[in-house]
């Protein structure tokens, strides 16, 4: 089965690496007292805060992106269906979260941040969960 617009299999590990790498970077940034949340408003382009913002937000979202859209070892039509289904659920959840937070929270910066990772995160969790369940039923069959 042709699978265009997907990253190679190894990108998954690269993606997890980036996601894990962003944790210490963020912690360092917060310890240094840098404003990682909205650096552009306060500082301008390519200042310390902005660079940290790039390295944290981008590292994480790029990592999640690579994990979410890396190929599976065997790409077949069932995987495609699961992927599509999970994407649909991710969009549903994202919009529920987005609309609820727009109505109840007056903090667009954090809503944007949430919006950056919720769909990808939920997609990855749902996708892997379904594949995990498939594998489990496989091992039960023997």
């Amino acid at each position: 089965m042709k699978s265009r617009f997907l990253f190679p299999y190894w990108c998954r590990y690269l993606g997890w690496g980036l996601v894990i790498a962003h944790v210490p970077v963020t912690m360092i940034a917060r310890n240094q007292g840098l404003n990682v949340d909205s650096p552009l408003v306060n500082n301008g382009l390519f200042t310390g805060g902005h660079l940290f913002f790039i390295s944290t937000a981008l590292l994480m979202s790029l990592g999640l992106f690579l994990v979410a859209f890396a190929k599976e070892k065997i790409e077949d039509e069932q995987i495609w269906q699961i992927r599509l289904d999970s994407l649909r659920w991710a969009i549903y959840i994202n919009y529920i979260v987005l609309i609820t937070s727009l109505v109840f929270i007056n903090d667009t910066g954090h809503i944007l941040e949430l919006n950056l990772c919720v769909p990808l995160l939920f997609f990855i969790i749902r996708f892997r969960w379904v594949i995990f369940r498939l594998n489990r039923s496989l091992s039960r069959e023997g």
Partner: protein
Amino acid sequence: MKNNIRVERAIKNITQGELAEIVGVSRQTINSIESNKYVPSTVLALKMARVFGKPLEEIFTLEEGD
């Protein structure tokens, strides 16, 4: 939709893994098709029918409500 892939596999004496490899899908997919959790595409169904050397209707049959 019902199917008798499990029976056909037993007749031909091949495992889920071997069938999966021949038709180019994962073992999970064959397993979900056999347990009626996943309906294969026409292409995949035709490929499997070719492996067993039988027409499609002998392997896949419609159920009430399909």
